[in-house]
């Protein structure tokens, strides 16, 4: 008698535990490639559609992160990272490879314009610019800004939005432009005034500012040039302005994490992203990265500039400190 009821009681308790554990075990099955990506949702959509079209549907999961979040994870976890494939700002992949050697060789016959590396393939390039909500600007009677410095004027108080360099690589494009034009001392003042003007509208995501400009939360913003072009083409009251300080660029690349020989599917998927998805990505982010690629006239910014040294995580941290000092 006793035995029967013992079994019953234990049955209920343990079956719950076992079932729960099964749920956990199920999540551990190693048939899906996990892709960690810092890309904007437009880019992720392109990757998804391409992969699905190529028959990889259900064989991968994409997990998005902010650039800094993903960067922190890569630097802290190295090879132990959950992801099999990473798409990320190129300078971050380079630095992670240097300090953690966490990526495997990714051979291909592609010819990147910047020479490229053996373990990563560039997938898209970003250009920064100013954009405005023309309706709100007119409504508030504000002049159209021509430079980043214009946005530090008091009449733009609480009407400017830009991405935070501490979280977003698009934010770095802004800081690069300011530092290269005004140098350390004046640059810090410009940045401090800009921070004051933006107030609560300093965004953690690179696509935050354009959304705020679109909804009319703010009148002007800094972000990716292409987002403003798209919004304008949609018929929204948005326009883009190339700041005279310069349109700086960043590339993002894809790399495969070292999983001790278990990288076949991951490498396949990474290559599909770099090759098959490239055509659509080029449309979304019109910056030529490979030999033979061409973009339309209107996509070429007026003041295209490049930082004069190689971009590294160390340089980013230096600029982040610079930003924090301006915040004080």
């Amino acid at each position, binding site marked *: *008698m*006793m035995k029967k*009821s*013992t079994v*019953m*009681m234990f049955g*209920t*308790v343990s079956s*719950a*535990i076992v*079932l*729960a*554990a099964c*749920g*956990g*075990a*199920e*999540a*551990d099955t190693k048939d*899906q490639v*996990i892709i*960690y990506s810092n890309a*904007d*949702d437009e880019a992720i959509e392109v990757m998804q559609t391409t992969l699905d079209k190529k028959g990889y549907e259900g064989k991968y*999961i*994409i*997990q*998005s*992160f*902010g650039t*800094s*979040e993903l*960067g*922190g*994870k890569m*630097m*802290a976890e190295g090879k*132990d990272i*959950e*992801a099999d494939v990473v798409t990320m700002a190129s300078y971050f992949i380079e630095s992670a490879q240097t300090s953690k050697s966490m990526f495997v060789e990714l051979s291909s016959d592609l010819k990147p314009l910047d020479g490229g590396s053996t373990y990563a393939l560039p997938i898209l390039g970003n250009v920064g610019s100013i954009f405005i909500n023309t309706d709100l600007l007119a409504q508030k009677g504000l002049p159209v800004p021509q430079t980043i410095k214009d946005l530090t004027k008091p009449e733009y108080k609480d009407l400017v939005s830009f991405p935070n360099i*501490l*979280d977003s690589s698009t934010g770095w494009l802004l800081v690069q432009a300011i530092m290269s034009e005004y140098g350390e001392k004046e640059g810090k003042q410009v940045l401090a005034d800009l921070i004051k003007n933006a*107030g*609560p509208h*300093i*965004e*953690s*995501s690179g*696509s*935050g500012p354009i*959304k*705020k400009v679109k*909804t*009319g*939360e*703010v009148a002007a913003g800094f972000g990716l040039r292409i987002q403003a072009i798209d919004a304008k083409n949609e018929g929204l009251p948005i326009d883009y302005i190339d700041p005279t300080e310069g349109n700086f660029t960043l590339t993002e690349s894809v790399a495969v994490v070292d999983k001790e020989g278990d990288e076949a599917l991951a490498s396949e998927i990474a290559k599909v992203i770099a090759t098959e998805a490239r055509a659509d990505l080029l449309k979304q982010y019109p910056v030529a990265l490979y030999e033979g690629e061409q973009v339309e006239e209107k996509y070429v910014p007026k003041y295209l500039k490049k930082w004069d040294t190689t971009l590294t995580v160390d340089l980013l*941290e230096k600029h*982040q400190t610079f930003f924090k000092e301006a915040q004080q």
Partner: protein
Amino acid sequence: MLKTNKMVKILFLPIVFFFLFFLIVPLLYMFWQSLKKGNSITIQNYVEALQSVEIREAFLNSFQVSFVAAVITTCLAFALAYAMHFTTMNQHLKKLVHIGVTLPMLLPTITYGFVLLYTFGNQGILTKLLGQPLVTIYGFNGLLIGYVLYTLPVAFILMQNSMQYIDKRFLLVSMLMHDRPSRRFYHTVFRPMIGTIGGAFILTFILSFTDFGIPASVGGGYKVIATELYQAMLGSIVRFEQGAVISVLMLVPAVLGIVMLSVLDRFNFQYKHVSQSALAVHRLRDNTFTVLSLVCVSVIFIIFSTMFIVPFTKGYPYDFSFTLEHVQNVLAEKNLTRVYMNSLIVAFFTAILGVCIAFVSALLNVRTPLKGRSTLDFASMITNTVPGMVLGLSYLFFFNGSSLKGTFFIIIAYTVVHFFTTPYLMAKNSLQKMDPTWEVTGELLKDSWLQTVIRVILPNIRPTIFQMFSYYFLNAMVTVSGVIFLVSTKTMLVSTRIKELQHFAKYTDIFVLSIFILCTNLIVKLGCDYITTNKEKFKEM
């Protein structure tokens, strides 16, 4: 008295191990981590943290905003509970107040922030109606409103419960003695409620102090301790030691709060017999509280109505025409439906496992003479003290590198432990009320202890079991604070996915997912309530 039998010990062991592995050891391990610097043991980390301007500022900010929020919430909750019990307000309105105030409990706190943005922001619905923004919502104001919304239900339920046990005859006596109204209020309502008021204040303070969802959504540039902790652990430069230090610091107010709660407990007294006597009609009083209640409930409904407006309009704020497009998009996205299923799995198994553990713990504590059963009370006290973020973080430290990392099980274990106190106390209360001689009678009739439990105790406690199930399920659906440290790509939950959608500023998706959570929770809650009340009615017959 019964003798401890083997069965009781067999049941006790796994529970002790569970709390050891999923509560005590991880916390100690985290404490250990906070003392480590390289290979040496020092308090250097604490010194550094306390010297850091940012952390000090965040701590102070957290303290300030939580304090103000706790004051407002406590006053509001008292007034609303007073309106429920000591005024002759319309019965239907009373019901409406109850529903309205407790409704936000069914949503993750991170949603509150976005709802506030869409109500008070530059393009918010209220701003559109008024022509200009009422307040700047980012930072202090947003946090304050968010915290009040978040903690009001808890404080309200506490006050309501206490007020039920206040004898209303004393009001009549006081009136016959020609007391001044202020004196009458003080002696018949305020004085008996002091313990509860203090308790509600401390509880709301701690809840606000340790919440992550609201600052994550409307914090803006206003630094609070919860976002600092997140930055240290998942930000651009990961500093594990600093994270450990911050979470130990976060424990301090919580521990102090619990100590104060036990002191306040002395002020709680109960009337032996509570008699219900009719309240005298008092126009001014009743009308004032009716207006107050109406205002409160309307504000809550207005704020949360944005959640239902935005996802069903084509292009907020430009195109207000109705559309189901956004909802369909969300439904079509495999990622989102997968995440929703994950949440359901976690909530369901949390509820099952949680009810088992809480019930057996309460059973062993109340109805057996088992040695060491008071450790269970101790466990429940600790789970009540430790903030979710701190517990989640301690798991991250302790289970990092083990095979449990990134599984559903670890999330379920976290949720079971974190929300253990309330269901445990619910079960304890019910079990204490039952006749203490049942087990003895059962033994005389040659039933084993376990048979008595299954045949007699379980059927009698069934309504409470359903309430415990519903409590666990609801909280597992909405919790954010601790699970952000525990989810992996394959175990992503709706509440944590919202954090990710925030990164892309996909507010419509956030609202659609929030509506999913709300509906799921409503169904479960109403279902459990229905079963409970039905059973009770049946018993009365």
